[in-house]
């Protein structure tokens, strides 16, 4: 039994709804800009994929307190939109779970707390640091939505929300739940920006994933959640809204804490096992939404793994991180959301720019946004620190 995708919610640098995100792609408008809200002292020299709403504006939109973490505000925005796609009568009779993902939890508040705490151990607003742990935002959002049949949080760095979607599908398959809202969130924080920046894998300018001249990633932020349903729960809905989460796999590169192996062993295993799970051949895949961070290491390792798995015959592919920035724990769900649009709406998402292929590989990404009628199976890749590699496949019903 496959989990059916029947709806979702998204917020990222490209917009606060599906319509806004699609409009940005249609206009070929990248979300990478100077930061308006992130208070890093390096903001002048870098571009970020920042959500174009302040905490205040996000909070007002949802009648929430502006003192909440940005993690909560972004998560709530996307999860609320996803939840609202579930018909009210179905909500009442179904066992519903909320599986979220984040890499830094409420770090945006913790780093403010530390400014005061480091001066005086008795100082600092506890109302800030109380948002620190990963489960805090998940619990807040689940309570607001009234979800209590199952609630948990996954934290596997940049593959986090792909794993949340995978767990959701598995719980439906096991018959433990009828509906799952699964995805993830990460806000821009000084912590993550400085972390990636000291690793010297941040491109100060618009990033160039899958390009030989790529110089690193751009950090972004956002949240996305998909509504997954068992076939039985989805029976009441019109078939046109469905696609299937037909394949998924999680593997570990077991090579290095922050770098992928040259042969992309973890990515290869994740993609191969996801195909196996979906009972598909590589040639069945019509489009790959790559992890494609724009770092030298990722794109080479991922590209190499794709070449190994697909032989020389590549499906359409691109990295939408060139539009959204790398949204860390949210990226798996944001890209899964886009992949669902590819399957249900035939949208092919482009790379923002492309000049020459990654060394030794002849991967040529899509460079134009367009609709193509026959997108049956789409693969979405998410890899992270700690060798965590996950791959999802969405298919037409």
């Amino acid at each position: 039994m496959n989990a059916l995708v029947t709806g979702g919610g998204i917020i990222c640098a490209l917009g606060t709804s599906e319509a806004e995100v699609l409009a940005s792609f249609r206009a070929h408008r990248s979300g990478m800009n100077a930061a308006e809200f992130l208070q890093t002292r390096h903001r002048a020299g870098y571009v970020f994929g920042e959500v174009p709403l302040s905490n205040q504006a996000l909070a007002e939109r949802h009648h929430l307190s502006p003192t909440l973490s940005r993690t909560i505000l972004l998560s709530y925005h996307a999860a609320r939109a996803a939840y609202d796609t579930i018909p009210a009568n179905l909500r009442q009779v179904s066992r519903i779970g909320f599986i979220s993902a984040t890499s830094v939890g409420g770090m945006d508040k913790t780093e403010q707390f530390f400014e005061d705490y480091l001066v005086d151990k008795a100082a600092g607003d506890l109302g800030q640091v109380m948002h620190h742990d990963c489960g805090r935002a998940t619990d807040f959002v689940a309570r607001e939505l009234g979800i209590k049949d199952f609630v948990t949080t996954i934290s596997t760095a940049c593959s986090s929300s792909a794993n949340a979607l995978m767990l959701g599908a598995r719980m439906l398959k096991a018959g433990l739940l009828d509906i799952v809202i699964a995805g993830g969130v990460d806000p821009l924080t000084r912590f993550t920006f400085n972390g990636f920046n000291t690793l010297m894998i941040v491109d100060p300018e618009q990033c160039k994933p899958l390009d030989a001249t790529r110089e690193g990633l751009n950090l972004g932020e956002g949240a996305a959640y998909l509504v997954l349903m068992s076939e039985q729960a989805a029976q009441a809905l019109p078939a046109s809204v469905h696609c299937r989460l037909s394949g998924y796999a999680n593997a570990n590169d077991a090579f290095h804490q922050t770098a992928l192996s040259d042969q992309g062993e973890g990515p290869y295993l994740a993609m191969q096992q996801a195909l196996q799970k979906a009972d598909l051949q590589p040639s069945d895949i019509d489009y790959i939404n790559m992890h494609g961070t724009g770092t030298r290491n990722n794109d080479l390792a991922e590209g190499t793994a794709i070449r190994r798995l697909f032989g020389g015959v590549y499906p359409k592919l691109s990295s939408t991180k060139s539009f959204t920035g790398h949204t860390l724990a949210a990226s798996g769900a944001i890209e899964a959301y886009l992949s669902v649009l590819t399957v249900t709406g035939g949208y092919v998402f482009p790379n923002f720019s492309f000049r020459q292929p990654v060394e030794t590989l002849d991967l040529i990404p899509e460079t134009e946004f367009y609709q193509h009628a026959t997108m049956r199976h789409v693969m979405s890749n998410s890899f992270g620190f700690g060798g965590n590699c996950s791959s999802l496949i969405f298919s037409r019903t």
Partner: protein
Amino acid sequence: MSFYINGIGAVSPQKSFAEALSSKPAVHYGNQLHCQEPDYTAFIDARQLRRLSRIVKLSIAASSQAVQDAAPAIIDGVIVGTGWGCIEDTVTFLEKMVENQEEALSPTAFIHSTHNTIAAQVAFQLKCKGYNTTYSHRSISFESALLDAALLLAETPAQTLLVGGVDELTNTSFSILSRFDLFKQPQELGSDSLFSLGTAGTVAGEGSVFFAVSGVRTEHSYCQVAAVQTLSFGSTDDAVEAARKMLQRHGLPAVDLLLLGNNGDSKEDKHYDSFETNFTQQGQTLKFKHLCGEYPTASAFGLGLGATLLKQNLSLGSVPQSVLFYNCSPQSHQALVLLRAC
């Protein structure tokens, strides 16, 4: 969805579960229970040792013990639950970032700050390229990991997974958590008197407990994990009802032992007392947080204790055949685990 615990490894405030269950468990004074750390060179190459953070060392030691104990052919996956993650490295990077005003930072602490560093490093040691994930959801982080393992083993029983519950107690985490009035005054107690004070607050703890679990029973098996369930935002009555249904499903009119997560905080213990009154006539009760302290994944220590009891029959009178484990953080999450002798 049942499976077997075939090996256990732990680094905790107790030297071993056998010691914890003896008449003379280690007693800690003050309001912090720190791990009794082993000689890591028994588990980790000495050159590597210097580069690893403490929480990773705790976890490689504990997971190595679990693997030795279960002696499986291979480990097919690693699943970790951690409430706080790698808090020491997180704080190190955060402090430097604030103090140096975002200049001249070293990436080392950042690299090791992500929650999945623990499962990643355990997998790296074992060269395990299989399933690997990390849960971080407050007091049910470990139970989420256990539930994930149950799902995997229901699909493919003939594999062995490492499932761990890990949290570290650091000076900074203790200093900040103390300001939320979570802990008793240090002069109040030795940890053996935790349950007799009847005052507010608990004691802080830490630990790394790993289980080698499989759908296949072996000669090393400690017990069967018959059921795992988490409840969110419910009442104690909801947990009682869920526990009753759980026992019913498994044809158990009663359990021999109730294993409870009381932490000595009078405000919280009343929830456990209320749970207990629904089951006590049926068997004995054992509490464990005086042995390990309170921390988000303390339930992993509790289950290690329960599993050891079922295997070794270090019985409290009669030999237990079934253990019902209950842990809660009031107003948010509750967890139930049913263990059975096998």
